């Protein structure tokens, strides 16, 4: 499809949907409604939205959908750290039911017992999954989970009367583990990796002080290496009076195997859209479920879901709470999907998911490391958990083509590939996370694509240079995006800056 911008499809007077009409009797009673609006606030020009029939709107967005790639359409293992696993379709039926889609947050609690029960039951499951005690499902994603943790750390020390304003995180933790505490007003120290790729213990000791409020660690880190010494870190942190916050975004290799509890973390968050199979939705809505030890219950975002007898209710009585991070109580659809996914697997199945995720990752690792020009960081860690950060550094040296070139070319094979979180310390990085959802044949096919691209880089440079060849669009001029006189963030701005196809006015 060479799909126009939607405004180009507008035809005068066309309608995509009608509204219920109050009818002439009501109009006779109260007038047209609009004339009662104070004139200074009455909008008389209509917003210049497109005017289209319903089929025309549907077709447009269907065409855009077909120009997009989800887990349902490709072997989505190239977006490492994202855990692009299968989101079971059966769960979509629960979420789209009016019993979930059409309930209001202020309804009497007797009319939303189903929603509350599932939130409660999901918490009960997480008691086992992470070993901690109380839960909030308010955060809308992983970074938001980090915000909740950072806010709880603030609230905790405020309550204790301690003035601590530093956070320590690690280089291969998720970007949010640094960014969120910074945004929350903490000073953040990022520990460099040691020669094993793990956070440097000496640097950690040096950074730790009575100013340290918390550590924010991801484990395994984005290299796929599990920090075996994690308990040393949490132990030192606790000794220094800091709280230990666990970013569990990379939990997909740990279910039933290793938990926050055994590693002595105080707080933790999980991405229900990664590990627990809620779909990513192009980037949310999602849930970053936060888990806390019993002694931190009071600081969780209010309200919590509690059970009294057979009745579930919202407990707002948390005077020391860190406050709220999101309106109302959380993203119910991902909560329900996560619960349903856990229930469809059970304890054995969850552990099997992690075990196979690990198996798949190590399989792909062995296959990929046989590809010319591709290596991995910290190669002496022979076995990885659920993902691996690789490097095309050698190929870049040999051919001039690096990870960005692979990324452009792989679109031609109908699949994804993501370089890696910035900053790039590992040269020309890419991160592959096979998860448990893909079959051996899927993994073989993906590896074969990377092998083919490596071959092309070494032997058919022209193919790489012109890529993508089969994509909807060709090379995008990125300079525009950093130039205020040329970027156009909306169609309205485009029309002000340009005539026709990018003819500057």
């Amino acid at each position, binding site marked *: 499809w060479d799909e126009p*911008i939607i405004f180009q499809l507008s035809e005068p007077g*066309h309608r995509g*949907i009608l509204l219920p009409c*109050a009818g002439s009797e009501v109009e006779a009673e109260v007038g047209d409604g*609009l004339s009662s609006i*104070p004139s*200074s606030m009455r909008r008389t020009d209509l*917003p*210049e*939205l497109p005017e*289209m029939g*319903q089929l025309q709107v549907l077709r447009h*967005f269907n065409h855009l959908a077909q*120009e*997009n790639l989800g887990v349902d359409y490709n072997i*989505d293992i190239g977006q490492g750290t994202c855990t692009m*696993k299968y989101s079971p379709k059966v769960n979509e039926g629960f979420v789209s039911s*009016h*019993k979930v889609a*059409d*309930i*209001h*947050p202020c309804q*009497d609690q007797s009319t939303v017992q189903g929603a509350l*029960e599932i939130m409660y039951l999901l918490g009960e499951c997480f008691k*086992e999954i992470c070993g901690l005690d109380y839960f909030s499902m308010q955060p809308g994603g992983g*970074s938001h989970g980090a915000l909740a943790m950072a806010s709880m750390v603030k609230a905790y020390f405020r309550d204790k009367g301690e003035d601590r304003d530093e956070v320590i995180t690690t280089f291969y933790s998720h970007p949010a583990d640094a*960014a969120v505490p910074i*945004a929350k007003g903490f000073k953040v120290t990022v520990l460099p990796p040691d020669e094993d790729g793990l956070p440097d213990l000496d640097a950690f000791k040096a950074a730790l002080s009575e100013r340290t409020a918390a550590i924010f660690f991801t484990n395994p880190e984005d290299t796929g290496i599990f920090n075996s010494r*994690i308990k040393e870190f949490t132990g030192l942190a606790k000794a220094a009076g800091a709280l230990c916050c666990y970013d569990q975004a990379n939990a997909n290799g740990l279910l*039933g195997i290793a938990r926050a509890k055994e590693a002595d973390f105080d707080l933790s968050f999980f991405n229900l859209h990664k590990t627990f*199979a809620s779909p*990513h939705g*192009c*980037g949310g*809505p999602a849930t970053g479920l936060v888990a806390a030890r019993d002694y931190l219950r009071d600081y969780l975002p209010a309200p919590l879901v509690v059970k009294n007898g057979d009745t579930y209710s919202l407990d707002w009585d948390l005077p020391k709470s*860190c*406050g709220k991070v*999101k*309106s*109302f*109580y959380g*993203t119910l659809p991902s909560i329900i999907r996560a619960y349903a996914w856990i*229930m469809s697997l*059970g*304890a054995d199945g969850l552990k099997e998911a992690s075990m196979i995720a690990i*198996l*798949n990752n190590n399989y792909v690792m062995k296959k990929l490391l046989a590809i010319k020009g591709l290596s991995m960081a910290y190669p002496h860690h022979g076995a990885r958990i659920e993902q691996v950060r690789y490097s095309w550094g050698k190929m870049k040296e040999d051919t001039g083509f690096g990870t960005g070139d692979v*990324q452009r070319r792989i*679109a031609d094979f109908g*699949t994804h590939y*993501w370089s890696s979180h910035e900053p790039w310390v590992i040269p020309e990085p890419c991160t592959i996370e096979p998860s448990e959802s*893909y079959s*051996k044949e899927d993994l073989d096919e993906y590896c074969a694509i990377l092998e083919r691209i490596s071959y092309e880089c070494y032997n058919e440079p022209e193919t790489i240079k012109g890529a993508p060849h089969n994509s909807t669009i*060709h090379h*995008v*001029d990125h300079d525009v*995006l950093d130039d205020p006189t040329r970027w156009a*963030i909306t*169609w309205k701005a485009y029309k002000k800056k340009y005539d026709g196809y990018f003819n500057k006015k």
Partner: protein
Amino acid sequence: MSCCRKIVHPYIPNSSPETKKEILDFIGADSIEELLVDIPQELRMKGDMDLPEPCLSEAELCRHMDSILEKNTSVRQAISFLGAGCYSHQVPAIVDEIISSGEFLTAYAGEPYEDHGRFQAMFEYQSMMAELLDVDVCNVPTYDGAQAAGNALRMASRIVGRKTVIMAGAINPDRRKVVETYLDSILSIKTVGYDGETGLVDLKDLSEKLDETVAAVFVENPTYLGAIETQGQTISEMAHKIGAMFVVFVDPSSLGVLQPPSRYGADISCGDIQPLGIHMHYGTGGGFIATADDPKIVEEYPSRLFSVAPTSHGEWGFGDVLWERTSFANRDSCKEFVGTHAALWGIAAGVYLATMGPKGMEDLGREIMQRSLYAKKLLSSVPGVKVDRFKSTSFKEFVVDLNGTGKTVEELNRYLLDKGIFGGKDISKEFPELGQAALYCVTEMVSPRDIETLVEAIRSFVE
């Protein structure tokens, strides 16, 4: 009832023993256990997780889930007058169709080449919001409107270089709590009340509190109590005079018939897109921030901003504006953070706006106005019930004052619930100065007949 068969799970294809063995052989390992070398025994979980017996088949899972979800009563099974930041509006079926398509639902973060559709859909969302708001820049959705408000105030603070903000008028208390979390440790908040007679911002109080430490004045329009704030232009001038920015939280469903904030001086408009074709889901949301196309402002957005860009072959290309600005690119010295927020709701709102078109948005505003007026007219006929607590015009929500009936909102709502009616939100604790008062919401989903049913029920209750 435990299953008596060996399980190869449909979601874990390689759990097939044949495949598992093939892979282990290739790796050269005897068991997966061997691959866990880096996880010391002391960190291992002892024993198995104690989880409920699973529902391994879809049929059993559906029965289990149905048996729980059945306990919910949805607004499709009742007559609802609840609003207060989450709204029941008509959701066109094609919105659900598109956002439930596997292509959008299960995608994440691909590049412009293979995820072209997502980039374009998001650009179109931004663009349609810009038409509604009459601005040139709008962001990719935040988690919710509350975050958008928090972000907007932090943006204003950075732009103006001051550390205090004023929240003025009747503000949604739930939202305010979230904003406080976003501002905590960074900015301080001063509160300005509402005028007891009009329900609008108390201008006197505002002018007293407004000084040159103030980075921004924040108001809601309509206010939490439903009034159309008509003093926007005045407040804007007051704020601008001392170099502060004016931030308006606006209900986008009103903008087919109400002026957008940019036209009465708002420097930043923000709000929640949930009313634009997104199901309530027990309180979901997605936030927008919208401003002029001023690089000083654009620099301060925490969110992703997609721009259209030319390609070598003349297609519509897309990409991230000022990528280096975001915490993705620049985590260690970021101003705020970005992550997985609410992109799918942005696509939903885009489909909604395209489906509604200009006339749909106008009709929506008209229907809401007419029905609210009709509800107020009928309610005011009930002895002791007052709907004119404030001398201002309301949009979609209004206060129903029960003080003259001798009954509490709680009692009334319990009575209504028995009749299948969700009465307005009890705000007597949030706003004790109003006594026994409820916040009623009337959207296009409430029919004239529903209103009559409500009024009959209230009448029979109070009489």
